[in-house]
């Protein structure tokens, strides 16, 4: 009897079908803009004159010579590193809490995931109001509790100017980034914690280990590779991010919160110099690539079985 052959029985065909959406996404929305940015970076293209003339590394030298760029680059690295430290601490604590048994866990998890599920720009508009120079609810609370206002503990003024002083604006931006990225890192760490075999944890308990020892000597070392991945995710997201500062500070006051993503946008799109904008954003690429390779190798080396 002749057997009918269905197209869906063909492994290759089905494989290709399943891969296509992901490939299309990467090619069209990541690959193409990326190649275009590289092409722009080696050209003299501007918004006014879209001819691509090859100019070699001229844009890169120009950018590197630029003092603002250097400061922006340094600010970006500083923001990223400082916020990663806090993200890692908070994400670990929260992941441990959320993998314990307690009533209302489901609701707590749901509430907590919201910052990450909310569209960034929308969330930032919320923070813009929370940190408003005049009407900040935080200032209001501090005022009511005597931390602000005449004879206030923190300041005699009625406001702290969250987004307007050099120190506070940087702290605010880092804080908001931590607020926004901690949920993702937490979810990744939670997945890691719940993938630890229960036998191992039961064994630790029978061996006489208490909470802290089990945490520090069993759980954390076992999720170390996953922690590295979580860190990599949030680092790369943060390094290239411009939305937070674009909405909150526009890089100000002066240049204190100007980061690479925003600067590239400001030079390339708002300033019309597409070539230099591309060159600025591409400066991050080799750095991120090296970091990603290093971290992935660390993770796979630390991986157990």
């Amino acid at each position, binding site marked *: 009897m002749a057997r009918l052959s269905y197209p869906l029985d063909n492994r290759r065909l089905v494989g290709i079908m399943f891969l296509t959406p992901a490939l299309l996404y990467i090619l069209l929305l990541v690959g193409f803009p990326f190649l275009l940015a590289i092409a722009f970076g080696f050209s003299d293209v501007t918004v006014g004159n879209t001819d691509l003339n090859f100019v070699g590394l001229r844009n890169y030298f120009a950018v590197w010579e630029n003092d603002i760029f250097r400061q922006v680059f340094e600010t970006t690295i500083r923001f990223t590193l400082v916020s990663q430290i806090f993200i890692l601490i908070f994400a670990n604590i929260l992941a441990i809490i959320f993998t314990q048994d307690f009533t209302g866990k489901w609701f707590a998890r749901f509430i907590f995931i919201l910052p990450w599920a909310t569209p960034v720009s929308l969330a930032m508009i919320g923070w813009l109001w929370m940190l408003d120079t005049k009407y900040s609810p935080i200032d209001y609370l501090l005022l009511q509790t005597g931390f602000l206002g005449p004879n206030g503990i923190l300041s005699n003024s009625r406001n702290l100017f969250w987004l307007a002083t050099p120190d506070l604006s940087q702290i605010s931006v880092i804080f908001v980034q931590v607020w926004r990225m901690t949920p993702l890192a937490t979810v990744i760490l939670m997945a890691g914690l719940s993938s630890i*075999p229960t*036998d*191992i944890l*039961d*064994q*630790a*308990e*029978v*061996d*006489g*280990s*208490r909470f802290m*020892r089990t945490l520090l*000597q*069993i759980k954390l*070392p*076992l999720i170390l590779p996953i922690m590295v991945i979580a860190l990599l995710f949030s680092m790369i997201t943060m390094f290239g991010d411009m939305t937070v500062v674009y909405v909150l500070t526009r890089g100000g006051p002066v240049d204190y919160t100007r980061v690479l993503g925003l600067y590239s946008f400001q030079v390339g799109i708002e300033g019309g110099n597409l070539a230099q904008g591309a060159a600025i954003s591409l400066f991050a690429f080799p750095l991120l690539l090296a970091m990603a390779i290093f971290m992935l190798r660390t993770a796979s080396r630390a991986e*157990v*079985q």
Partner: protein
Amino acid sequence: MSIVQITSLKKYFDSVRAVDGVDLAIDQGEFLVILGPSGCGKTTLMRMIAGLEKPTAGHIEIGGEDVTDLPPRKRGVSMVFQSYALYPHMNVFNNIAFPLRAQRRELKFDKRAIREKVENTARVLEIDSLLDRRPRQLSGGQRQRVAIARAMVTQPSVLLLDEPLSNLDAKLRANARDELKDFQRSSNITAVFVTHDQIEAMGLGDRIVVMSEGKIQQIGTPQSIYDDPANEFVATFLGSPSMNILSAKRFRFGFRPEHFLPKTLHDNPENSRIFHYYVKRVEYLGSDRLVYGYVQGHERELTLAKVPSNVRVSLDIEGDYEFAVHNRDIKYFDNISGQRIEQQSLAQAF
């Protein structure tokens, strides 16, 4: 003297009665095997002894102290899991040292004492050359030794072993079984060993506890539970191939295939029961012939005979033969409860 005393112990998971009223006394220094089919509650029972699972009802005493509500670390018990549960990120030394460090305060060990203890235990289990390795660099047999070393290093009052040999291949398993037994004898530790493998149970246990559906079916030496099963479950669970069971009017009776032999091989057929046996199929297993057939009057109940190959009796397919079983080898069971019935009380039934 019993070191562990378990009284009316129960554990229900919602409607599942994993352990359903277990009473058990474990003697100091004995090798006790808990034997039962998969899902009968062996692991749950062990976890309750270890303190990892809180009983629904009942009590556990260890060394005369009621430990029912105590956490694992206050019970002086250690456990080897089926998966060995070695800490994958620690080398063998740190794996073995882990319980010592965790209980340092209770056991009052300093660093030097810990090193000494780990090295001694490793030497006993012949893994002292592996102390720097990670678990993934070890063979299955070596992992099992590391797990046992880690369980032994604190000199627990009871060592719980949950199917520790089931991850080893057949050849290693027999070897590991002997070593485990020797080790238990020489260290004189009380061991509770869980298995679903009757051969393992028979070979290892000073006493065997047979479990089914959360309940203890019988406790006894390997010989006594094999020769003198308390009920039909124990009778058929032990032995391979398992005991033949045939129905009569008011009871069932059974006999083991190795006791079911051609009549001519019995010395005094007066003490035996004769059956007309129709042979359907014969399998040669080297030293034995396994015969499949039917006893007259029981044509729906496949009956097996295990006849040594070296006896010169020819058994042909589709032949009719006279087989016999010695009266003492026939066991009688209640039709409904499956409990053993004494032969005398059935004297008139035949």
